[in-house]
């Protein structure tokens, strides 16, 4: 398994993205008789992976490569898919988007059994990555290619440690072979190498240096042709290094869509669509607190230049004004840079609602209490917005108020403690079909589609129906996933059954699961299609709004009822009743609720030191949210590690903590998604699990 450096670090001897892509094309074209199902793309269900998949599919389509896109929801799904893929003899390229980095893919459990001509490309923003994926070489190893973002350059120490531990020679060996001449590769992450695995003979290369620990002063640096063995201290030090790498929690690297965008840049095939998708991936990472503000700024500046390169503004329109974000012509599909306020979907809601539903404002002002709401209206009044104005949908607000909004916010909001209200972002025009949509709003809409487009009854509000509008009864049911059916209705009556979802209406348990899987897949494709079509995307905004309303309802009720229990250093929330229980049984929605709670309570709760080896962890807000899934009688548990400062992120250690707690208390549980910090656990085991979890946290 090799890792590909990004193009700016590539050289003739180190192939980068473009070469890997060219290899895919070559393999496809070389076997014309079997190319029909030779490239398969597995996509994880998050917005970033969707954007990356779209870019990649478009690139492949332009190159006439026949490919196949398969959505995969979690590790169990991936295993099932793998079992199926084994039977495909013609498969020669497998691309994993936002999944698989932590798995040891060359082992027997995963893709080690596949034929030699299969190449697996791993484009994953999850970190930590499995070191075996990154560094193992050899023929078997060359099959797995990790597309790296430059971080691997900084992992020299981990690399040495891993190599030393895996290739530890037998005591009498005298060999000295290069890394690339390996015939066999063993694949263990951090198990003790003495576990009876096969070894390849290799002497330590001269590159290895001691790690500077005082205990090892007895060991001298070995020369190349000496047969050496790792001393116990050295081995322990390496173990510790690797354990630290894996044990520090999970974080996120470069988004998959950014990787794909870089590929497109290297191939010189970028256009506005790709840029927009890459921006969406980045914004998704930022708004879901996966990357810190600094990282966001770094990537933002790259995209900022790209925007101006690809979308030159006419000279009489100054950039960065609100006027700049209007469509110039009916076919204007360009991307513009804009400042984004931290209010949720504020261009599509009333101003009051947008501020009410944003977690940042909610936290600072204390929206869940009546006093906080008064403060909010007070703030708006101070800024010169009358109450009727703030209750108007944004599009109907007075123009001059809209222009002044930002200036007023900057001057008055700091009094209330709202300081970082804006961040630089982008917006896209859609000609005259729709008003320009900002990246954050688009991410919200797509995320809402992914989570709840179908399978759950969602009421969305009809605009103008508040305060007893034209039609009494302000909501209508969300009709998600139905848009494909109208197209099919027009088809001939021959052989077309109008409702495709009824195929798998079963009554046994498997049927339920299959129905659930069908809904999830439908949501996936609805979100995928919405990425390129403004009409469903705009409709999804109302879905996102109702989702937010539900989250706020639940969040405020939790805080009001003081439902947050503190177990040692963790804050735990357990939802077992409420109107929206079915909604929060989805891990995505539950995670959003957790993030909202973290943001809202950031200033009110003291941070606690948790995690980190030797108790050197940074202060953070560990949150565990659990929700009962009545249908399956299980609890969905999500762990979130909030940072104390807004815009900062912490590595999420809940993945490891969950696994350890699970083992300790033998709870019946499973991980249903790719994120190790999301767990589904039997109802009876929850209490014990939570207690064990908190012990685990303390025990570090």
């Amino acid at each position, binding site marked *: 398994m090799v890792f590909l450096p990004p193009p700016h670090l590539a050289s003739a001897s180190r192939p980068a993205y473009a070469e890997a892509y060219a290899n895919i094309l070559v393999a496809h074209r070389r076997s014309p008789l079997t190319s029909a199902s030779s490239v398969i793309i597995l996509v994880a269900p998050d917005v970033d992976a969707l954007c990356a998949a779209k870019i990649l599919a478009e690139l492949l*389509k332009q190159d006439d490569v*026949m490919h196949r*896109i398969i959505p995969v929801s979690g590790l169990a799904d991936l295993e099932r898919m793998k079992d199926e893929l084994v039977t495909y003899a*013609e498969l020669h390229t497998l691309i994993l988007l936002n999944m698989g980095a932590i798995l040891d893919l060359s082992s027997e459990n995963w893709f080690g059994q596949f034929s030699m001509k299969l190449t697996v490309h791993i484009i994953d923003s999850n970190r930590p990555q499995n070191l075996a994926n990154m560094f193992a070489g050899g023929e078997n190893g060359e099959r797995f290619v990790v597309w790296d973002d430059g971080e691997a350059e900084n992992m020299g120490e981990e690399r040495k440690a891993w190599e030393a531990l895996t290739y530890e020679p037998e005591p009498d060996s005298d060999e000295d072979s290069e890394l690339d001449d390996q015939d066999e590769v063993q694949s263990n992450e951090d198990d003790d190498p003495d576990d009876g695995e096969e070894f390849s003979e290799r002497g330590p290369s001269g590159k290895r240096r001691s790690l500077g620990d005082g205990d090892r002063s007895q060991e001298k640096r070995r020369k190349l042709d000496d047969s050496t063995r790792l001393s116990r201290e050295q081995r322990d030090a390496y173990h510790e290094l690797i354990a630290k790498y894996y044990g520090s929690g999970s974080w996120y690297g470069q988004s998959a869509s950014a990787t794909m965008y870089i590929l497109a840049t290297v191939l010189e095939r970028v256009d506005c669509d790709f840029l927009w998708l890459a921006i969406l991936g980045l914004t998704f990472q930022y708004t879901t607190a996966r990357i810190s503000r600094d990282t966001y700024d770094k990537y933002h500046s790259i995209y900022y230049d790209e925007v101006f390169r690809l979308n030159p503004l006419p000279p009489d329109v100054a950039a960065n004004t609100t006027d700049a974000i209007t469509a110039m012509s009916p076919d204007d599909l360009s991307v513009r840079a804009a400042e984004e306020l931290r209010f949720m979907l504020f261009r599509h809601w009333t101003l009051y609602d947008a501020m009410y539903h944003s977690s940042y404002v909610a936290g600072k002002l204390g929206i869940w209490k009546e006093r906080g709401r008064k403060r909010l209206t007070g703030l708006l009044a101070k800024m010169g917005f009358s109450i009727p104005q703030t209750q108007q949908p944004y599009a109907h607000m007075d123009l001059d108020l809209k222009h002044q909004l930002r200036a007023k916010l900057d001057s008055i909001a700091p009094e209330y403690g709202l300081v970082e209200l804006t961040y630089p972002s982008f917006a896209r025009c859609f000609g005259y079909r729709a008003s320009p949509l900002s990246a954050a709003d688009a991410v919200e809409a797509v995320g809402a589609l992914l989570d709840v487009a179908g399978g759950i009854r969602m009421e969305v509000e009809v605009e103008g129906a508040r305060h007893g509008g034209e039609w009494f009864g302000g909501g209508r049911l969300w009709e998600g996933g139905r848009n494909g059916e109208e197209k099919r209705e027009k*088809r*001939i009556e021959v052989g077309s059954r109008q409702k495709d979802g009824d195929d798998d209406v079963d009554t046994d348990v498997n049927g339920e699961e299959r129905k659930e899987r069908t809904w999830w897949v439908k949501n996936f*494709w609805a979100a995928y299609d919405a990425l390129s079509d403004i009409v469903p995307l705009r409709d999804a905004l109302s879905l996102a709004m109702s989702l937010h309303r539900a989250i706020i309802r639940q969040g405020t009720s939790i805080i009001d009822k003081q439902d947050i229990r503190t177990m040692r250093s963790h804050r735990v929330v357990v939802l077992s009743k409420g109107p929206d229980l079915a909604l929060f049984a989805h891990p995505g929605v539950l995670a959003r609720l957790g993030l909202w709670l973290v943001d809202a309570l950031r200033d009110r709760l003291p941070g606690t030191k948790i995690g980190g080896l030797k108790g050197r962890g940074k202060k953070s807000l560990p949150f565990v949210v659990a929700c009962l899934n009545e249908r399956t009688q299980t609890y969905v548990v999500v762990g979130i590690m909030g940072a104390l400062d807004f815009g900062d992120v912490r590595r999420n250690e809940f993945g490891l903590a969950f696994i350890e707690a699970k083992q300790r208390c033998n709870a019946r549980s499973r991980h249903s998604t790719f994120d190790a910090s999301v767990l589904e656990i039997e109802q009876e085991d929850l209490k014990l699990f939570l207690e064990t979890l908190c012990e685990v946290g303390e025990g570090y």
Partner: protein
Amino acid sequence: MTDTRQFGDLATQLIAESRRSTLTDTLLKYNDNLVRSIIREQRDLEKMTENNQNVTPAMLIYQTTIVRNKRCLLAYHKHRMDRLRDMYWTAGGALPHILSNQDIRSKLSPHEVDFLRQYSTSVMDYRAGFSNELDITASITHPPKDLHVLVHVIRDCGIIQTELGTIDFQKGQRFMVRRADIEHLIVQGYLEEV
């Protein structure tokens, strides 16, 4: 009580049925009973005109009715044949597909099934002559813009053999495939173009 009826009344009912079929754009069931009663009526009328050689007004009426009944029968059958032929072409010439569909099959009379079969054979013979250059059963409403097409699987169609290998279409996945290979699947409704 005897069934007193106007001459040609049944034929009008048959035509009304054809008209209803056109207006609702569906194929109705072959109305075997009505056709048989019309034929019975024809025979009765013919018996009445057999013996008499003189041209009387009564004879004229009988003759007109006979001719009209015949015309209505022919119109009905032609109408149905046209609909079947259209259905055949929209299905892309996949006769087994049509015939295996139970609700269609139940609406056809045995003669119509035979007609479809013979028609299909004729088309196949005709098509085989130049299938390298042109496939006449492919859809003509949207000329293909691209060699490849992105499709979404609506219903499982299993493993399909194409020129470029086998493809296993599974529900809920998307494929990029050569248009020529799967055109017939799109027409039959297994795949949907994205």
